[in-house]
C-alpha cells in the first residue's frame, strides 16, 4: 500500500481534495451575555472565537502545518494499529482581543488578552 501511495502521491492528493468534513476553521459568534459575563465586560459587543472541527485527512497536506509526528501517527492509524487515533483537528494560530471591563472598585480596565481568536487549524 505504502509503495502505491508514494508512487501515485500527486494523483492521490488531487483525488483527496478538501472534503467538506475535513479539518477546518468554523465560526461561532458568541455574546458575553451568553457567557454570563456581560455584567462586567463593556466591550467588545461581538466576539467570535471560532473553532476547528473535521477529520484530519489520511494524507496530511502541507497546508495543515502538521508536524512529522502527525504524518507518522496518521500512517500508524491506517497501516499498523487503528487503536492509535488519527491526529486531532486543533487551532494552530491565534490572535488577541482587547476587552474593556468594569472593576470591583468601580474603575474601568482595558486589557489585551492573547490567544482569544483561532486564526487557523492544524492536525496534531
Amino acid at each position, binding site marked *: 500500500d505504502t509503495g502505491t501511495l508514494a508512487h501515485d502521491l500527486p494523483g492521490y492528493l488531487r483525488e483527496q481534495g478538501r472534503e467538506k468534513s475535513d479539518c477546518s476553521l468554523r465560526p461561532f459568534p458568541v455574546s458575553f451575555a451568553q457567557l454570563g459575563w456581560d455584567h*462586567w465586560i463593556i466591550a*467588545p459587543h461581538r466576539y467570535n472565537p471560532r473553532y476547528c472541527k473535521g477529520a484530519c485527512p489520511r494524507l496530511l497536506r502541507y497546508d495543515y502545518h502538521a508536524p512529522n509526528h502527525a504524518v507518522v501517527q496518521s500512517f500508524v492509524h491506517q497501516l499498523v494499529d487503528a487503536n492509535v487515533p488519527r491526529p486531532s483537528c486543533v487551532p494552530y494560530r491565534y490572535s488577541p482581543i482587547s*476587552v474593556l471591563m468594569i472593576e470591583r472598585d468601580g474603575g474601568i*480596565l*482595558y*486589557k489585551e488578552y492573547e490567544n482569544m481568536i483561532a486564526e487557523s487549524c492544524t492536525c496534531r
Partner: protein
Amino acid sequence: NQSPLSPGSLPAVPPLPLLQALQVQAPGSRGWQAEPASGQPLRYMLNLYRHAADREGRPRHGRSLGTNTVRLVLASSHGDQSWAGRWYMQPLTYRLEGQPKAEHLLRATVVYLPNLPLARGRLLCALELAATGEAPGVLLSPATRPRHGWAEADVTPYLALGNGSVGSLALRHICVRAGRVGGHNAPVAPSHPFLLLYLNDTQAGLAPPAAEPHRHRR
C-alpha cells in the same frame, strides 16, 4: 443566569489571567462594589477602546496604546467642593494600594477638562499636586494637547508603583469662572478628573505590550 464562577470550582493551579479575572471580577464575587464608573470616565474609556480595537475586539495594527493594560482610577475621596466667588477648589485623592504585582507602571496621567463652556462664560481649570509637609504644591501642565476637550497631565514621576512606595495620589482641582458672572447660585461643579495608569501586565496570557517590532511605540 450563570452563577459567577466560585473560586472553589476553579483548578488549584494558578488560573490563566482570563479565568483569574473571571474569578475575581465577576459580580457576586467578594468585594464587588455596586457603582461602576459611568458618564464622562466611561465615555473616555470607550473612545480609547474604539481607537485601539475594532468591533470584534481585535487590536488595530499601528493603533496600539503601547501596552496591554490601561486602568482608569476614580478619585476615592473628593473633599468638600468650595466656591469662593469665582474660584473653585477641590482636593482629590486616588487610592493606589492593591495594584497587582504583575502590573508594572509605564505611564500615569490625570485626565481633566481644562476649559468648560458654561451658560454664561466658561470654567477654566487646572490641576495641582497637593502640597505636603515636605514639598510645596506643583502645578501640573497638560502633557498633550486637549483631545475632544480632555487634557492629560503626566503624573508618572509622582507614582513609584511596584515597590509600593506610593499608596495614594493627592491633587487639587482648581477652577475659575471666566466671563460675566451669572446669577447667584454657584455653577455646576466640573466633572472629577480621573487617573489613567498605563501598565504592562507581565502575566502569561496577556498580549505582550506592542512587543512586535512592526508595531509602532507611541
